[in-house]
């Protein structure tokens, strides 16, 4: 019913290419996250969906109807989209209840129906008691809830969320994340959630698209994004992946044998023997070992205690090798000690730069 699809969408501002030939489909009812570093074009993409910007090229469809073409956009007020802003965007001249009721009043919803829906929306976010307050009398978390209630009251089929947690304290963020997940389950609308925080995106979304420099790097479920990154950028951006150069030796059962700094290791992925590719490693794939064969020799250069584990930074002895991060649970070796690192798992990146 309310899928969102973009086809070859591009948008420039002067010389800057904010969004470059992006094609995406968000299924009806999906919780979809737009993830990327600041300036990657994710907010522009959201504004293209909302109708605040018209694309220079490409088509935007909402529920299979064309709403934007190159140079034309159906005005936002005719799209029936709900949005939660980073700044909350509560109108300071209206009370909490008036804020929530605004879109219903604009749409001429009858007075008693309107009151009922405002009360329901406020009850859903637990702010019935605050109906008569002004926005400036509320805390940050309460304002966020009002913004959400305002969005819910209009019963949108599509909800856009633009970094909604960026202005909140860390402990409030977790609580609000759970609220968002609950609302998504309860109202069944399509959610598009913009964030630069990969942990937030992975925790909430069914599917995440990673953007960089206005382009889509990869769109996939969180697990696939983490375990099978399509590009080096995704590997590094999601889950602090490390990227190292390998040469493919050949297939060994379900896995691939590769050569990393003269050490043979078995990893996941595809490739042809003799190819030079990039490998994505995560800290939990690496363990210290007493073996000397088939392990990477190096030296501990830093050690950071983090409670459950100590994160060791290891400089391999191989020439020009990037540093590796290893999570070590038992008593850590001293800084400067020589160690051997075994690789348990890794992923051969398809599009090696």
């Amino acid at each position: 019913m309310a899928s969102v699809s973009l086809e070859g969408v591009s948008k420039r501002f002067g010389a800057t290419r904010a969004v470059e030939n992006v094609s995406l489909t968000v299924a009806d009812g999906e919780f979809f996250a737009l993830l990327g570093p600041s300036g990657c074009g994710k907010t522009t993409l959201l504004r293209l969906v909302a109708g605040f910007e018209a694309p220079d090229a490409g088509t935007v469809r909402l529920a299979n109807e064309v709403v934007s073409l190159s140079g034309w956009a159906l005005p936002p007020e005719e799209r029936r989209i709900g949005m939660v802003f980073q700044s909350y965007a509560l109108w300071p001249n209206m009370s909490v209840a008036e804020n929530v009721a605004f879109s219903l009043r604009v749409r001429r919803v009858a007075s008693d129906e309107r009151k009922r829906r405002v009360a329901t929306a406020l009850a859903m976010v637990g702010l019935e008691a605050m109906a008569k307050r002004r926005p400036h009398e509320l805390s940050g978390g309460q304002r966020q809830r009002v913004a959400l209630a305002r969005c819910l009251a209009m019963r949108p089929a599509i909800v856009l969320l633009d970094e909604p947690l960026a202005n909140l304290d860390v402990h409030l963020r977790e609580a609000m994340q759970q609220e968002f997940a609950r609302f998504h389950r309860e109202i069944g609308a399509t959610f598009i959630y913009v964030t630069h925080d990969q942990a937030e995106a992975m925790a909430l979304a069914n599917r995440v698209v990673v953007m960089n420099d206005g382009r889509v790097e990869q769109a996939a479920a969180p697990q696939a994004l983490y375990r099978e990154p399509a590009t080096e950028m995704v590997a590094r951006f999601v889950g602090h992946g490390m990227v190292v150069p390998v040469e493919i030796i050949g297939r060994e059962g379900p896995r691939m044998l590769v050569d990393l700094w003269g050490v043979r290791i078995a990893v996941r992925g595809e490739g042809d023997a003799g190819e030079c590719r990039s490998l994505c490693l995560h800290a939990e794939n690496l363990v210290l070992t007493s073996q000397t064969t088939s392990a990477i020799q190096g030296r501990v250069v830093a050690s950071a205690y983090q409670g459950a584990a100590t994160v060791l930074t290891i400089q391999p002895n191989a020439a020009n090798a990037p540093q590796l991060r290893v999570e070590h649970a038992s008593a850590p070796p001293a800084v400067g000690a020589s160690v051997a690192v075994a690789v348990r798992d890794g992923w051969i990146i398809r599009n090696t730069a």
Partner: protein
Amino acid sequence: MVNAYSAGSLSTVRKRSASSGVFLIAALAIYVVVLAVWPLARLFYEALLPGRGGELLGVLLAQWRAPAAQAALINTIEASALATLVSVTIGVIVAFLLALTDIRGKAALTFIALLPLLVPSQITALAWIELTSSSVLAPLGLAPAPGTTNPLYSKWGIVLVMGIEHSTLVFLAVRAGLRNLPRDLIEAARLGGAHPLRVARSVIVPLALPAILAGAALAFVTSIGNFGIPALLGIPGRYTMLTTLIYQHLQGFGPRVLGEVAALALGLGALAVAGLLLRAIAVRGFAIEPGSAPLEPFRLGRARMVVAVLLWIMLIIIAVMPLIALLAASLSPALGVPLRFDTATLANYRFALLEQDATIRAFANSFLLAFTTAVVSASVALPLAYLATMRQNRIARALDAVADAPYAVPGTVLAIAIILVFLPPLPLLQVSLYGTIGIILVAYLARFLALVLRPTMAAMGLVNKSLDEAAQIAGASVLMRLRAVILPSVAPSVVAGALLIFMTAFNELTVSALLWSTGRETLGVVVFSLHYEGNSPAAAAVAAISVAVTLALAMIATTFRLPEGVVPWRA
């Protein structure tokens, strides 16, 4: 090796730096108290004296019982209120179109909309007289019939010209209010389903209302204190306002009626204070969250061209046409002779610049006064703003607050206060400033300090305190730090403020009309008297020159890199 930390040297250093700070604050305090606090306090005292029979508030009551005073009070409130309506109408329309839509040529339109701000009110009045007089409109067949009085010499003339002159104040206030509106608030309303006009009604207007009210209050207060327009239009039209009543009183009877005039001035001042209180309440408004990105302009679509043309026409009629009429009048050979290419003459400029002694003197006097006031005020504002913002000195903050008073009260009120204090011979010197150019200078120094103090305070607020502290740790004294660290970072704003003072003082009339004496004329006074002597072409020539000087200075100030709002006419 000498130990720099020995107890003796440390305490000497501390003493020296403390005493230079104390000296600085004491000097600033004396300056501000003598110029700003004392005269206004004296005015209060004088106006509240008992009457001749010793009755309580006798002077005040006697003055305000007079029918002339009551009529002038009613006229002042009436004309100012009506003029404010005109100002709000023009200012709001222009501000909404320029701040919220994608109308073409915003920079040029903004400059034209703010032209009345750069033209002093007596010259605006003169320009409108020329525009509506027969010599300019005759070729168009629009002139009033010969022999009839110009319709501008009336209440409605004052309302129209004053309304236009002060529309810039409303425009600036509303534009600033609209600029602070976060884009998110408008976008949230549109996603809620509201069309642009509904967004304007439900969100933009309610949020801009405090700014509109504040602008209206400011326009009202400025109208109450205006002298140039009621002097040129109201005196011949027999429509007396408080400023012109006080002027005529003092002109007619001289300093011996000072006490009575002070009572009238106190009433005028009270009216202004009431307006300013209204403004202070209005600006409180709603707490708007410091926002997201700036507003996206609304698209006018097909109406874009039509709206732009209509706005151009309106602004040209109210801001440009009068100045063209003024220029035409200055080139015409004599009153009433139609201006054509073959009759145009520079004789009026020759007369004003080379032949008439009073005018030549006035140029020199006004230049000297404006220049001295600008330089002295800037030199006072720099340390005062530094102590008030960077050092959070309580005395400096108090001085900063009271320094606004002489600019906030009508010029007429300040001039009376200055006469009260500086008419008697100065202590020790045994000479009176009255009748010298000195009294005008004192009044200007009092009145215009705020004009450079505001931008300097604003710029100082943006300077990182650690710059000053780093220089202090490096061992620099207060004066050294002001010169080497603070001045370089706030210089553009200080200079812009000084230019603003120069432009305002160079054309000043309200204060100097009450303080001038023969040989000590200012340009404003000369324009005024030439017009009254019936030599309108010469008055127009002098006015045209001073407008040209002001515009040139405005252009110069525009090129500085300044914090927003320091030079208001910049888009």
